[in-house]
């Protein structure tokens, strides 16, 4: 289903059209903001740039307030319009999506805070390369997930959800590497743990992006593909 095929403007009630359009737009604005937070957090970590890290951690309130605002509007729509079929699925999808977006915002905030505390640390250069690699992958996955959401594109959602496995693998191998380094040089444990937390946050962002993809599939196909394997996901949407 193309986003235009949501037919949000076809309701007899013009006001209802506007309300649905509004929550969808706001969810996309929130997605954009979260994407920027992740990107800035990662940049702050890698440059390193403690000022930017600080900014990311203090900007999270905007993500939070958007979540509350969108939730409130969705509640109003449920109470006043009793949406059905695709409208109902859209509202449910948005309620769930903004929850995951807010969590992504929290992870970005954590990365921002670690960026501040790691800015003066002497880390092995290899860590930056590893984090950059993982971070780029996560950013691209988040971008694709938000894109699939904006276009209500099931194929893109499935392809994007599939990326999560690779991200999990990358996180696992980075984590193993960090454990080895901690054992080699216990003096580094504190900082290396922080690096691990950052990697963990990136991996969690991948999980949340995958959830968004699953909501897109629910929205378009009316089928719940959560907690299924990729094969089952493909099967359910065929």
């Amino acid at each position, binding site marked *: 289903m193309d986003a235009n095929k949501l*037919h949000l403007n*076809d*309701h*007899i*009630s013009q006001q*209802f059209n506007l309300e649905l359009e509004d929550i969808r737009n706001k969810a996309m604005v929130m997605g954009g903001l979260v994407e920027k937070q992740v990107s800035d957090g990662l940049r702050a970590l890698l440059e390193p740039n403690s000022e930017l890290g600080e900014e990311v951690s203090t900007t999270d309130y905007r993500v939070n307030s958007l979540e509350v605002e969108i939730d409130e509007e969705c509640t109003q729509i449920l109470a006043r319009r*009793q*949406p*059905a*079929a*695709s*409208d*109902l*699925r859209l509202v449910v999808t948005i309620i769930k999506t903004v929850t995951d977006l807010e969590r992504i915002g929290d992870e970005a905030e954590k990365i921002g805070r670690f960026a501040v505390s790691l800015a003066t640390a002497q880390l092995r250069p290899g860590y930056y390369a590893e984090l950059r690699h993982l971070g780029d992958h996560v950013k691209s996955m988040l971008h694709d997930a938000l894109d699939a959401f904006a276009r209500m594109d099931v194929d893109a959602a499935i392809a994007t959800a599939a990326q999560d496995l690779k991200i999990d693998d990358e996180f696992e191998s980075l984590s193993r590497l960090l454990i080895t380094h901690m054992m080699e040089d216990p003096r580094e444990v504190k900082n290396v743990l922080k690096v691990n937390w950052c990697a963990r946050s990136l991996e969690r962002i991948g999980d949340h992006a995958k959830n968004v993809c699953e909501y897109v599939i629910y929205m378009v*196909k*009316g089928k719940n593909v959560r907690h299924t394997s990729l094969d089952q996901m493909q099967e359910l949407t065929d």
Partner: protein
Amino acid sequence: MPSSIANAAPAATAANLNDQQTQDLHQKIAATVGRIEVDDAKMSMRDVDVFYDDKHAICAVNLDIAAHEVIAMIGPSGCGKSTFLRCMNRMNDTIENCRVSGSLKLDGVDIYDKKQDVVQLRARVGMVFQKPNPFPKSIYDNVAYGPRIHGLAANRAELEEIVVTSLERSGLFAEVKDRLDKPGTGLSGGQQQRLCIARAIAVNPEVILMDEPCSALDPIATARIEELIDELRKNYTIAIVTHSMQQAARVSQRTAYFHLGYLVEVGETAKIFTYPEHKLTEDYITGRFG
């Protein structure tokens, strides 16, 4: 397709369409989406057509209704849902210019058979109307009327038993037990409607047809009737026509969507209201322009 069909298209959607567009539309909705058959059919309708003079009000509708299920019939005004409901206990017989064809079976027996006693049929397939219509008699006599004319009670005690049970089942007994001799018309709207339901179930029907039973009631009375519908399902099969989509979603297990005299889609209520297959169903339940 005969031109009479095109003419029959009720005004709302078809008014501004030319013949070709109307025909296209009819073609698009002629085949019902979803499963019309059920395993345990109480009523079974096949190729049902209804004409009012030359107006084609119901076009080749096929539908089964399972025993102990509540089926909701929804659709825009003039879509034929009430007409279809009224076919199921031959209420349309009383309309002079109305012609019904096709097969309508109750427990496998054709209810339009010449040998079918219509009075008996209506005792087996009861009806509750939009507007509560108690007889201008006492509460007791309203309920006792049916059992009396059908000779269901051997004596006064039995009749009283039937009246009390029916009032209990319709959830009204506790409210009226001290004034059974008072006129039924003195009750509130919601109570009157429950009295009509008690009257309908007093003759021990198998199927109850409800034609917008709550449209004249306030939300509390509506909630009581809806609760009652769920209770009644244990003993009866219920077909309900309603304009309230939320009501259809709340009370029924299956939902049938009618449009321009066609049965467009039928299926599990949960599915119809979350992921309908036909675009017309989707447009209707989401309040979009058809």
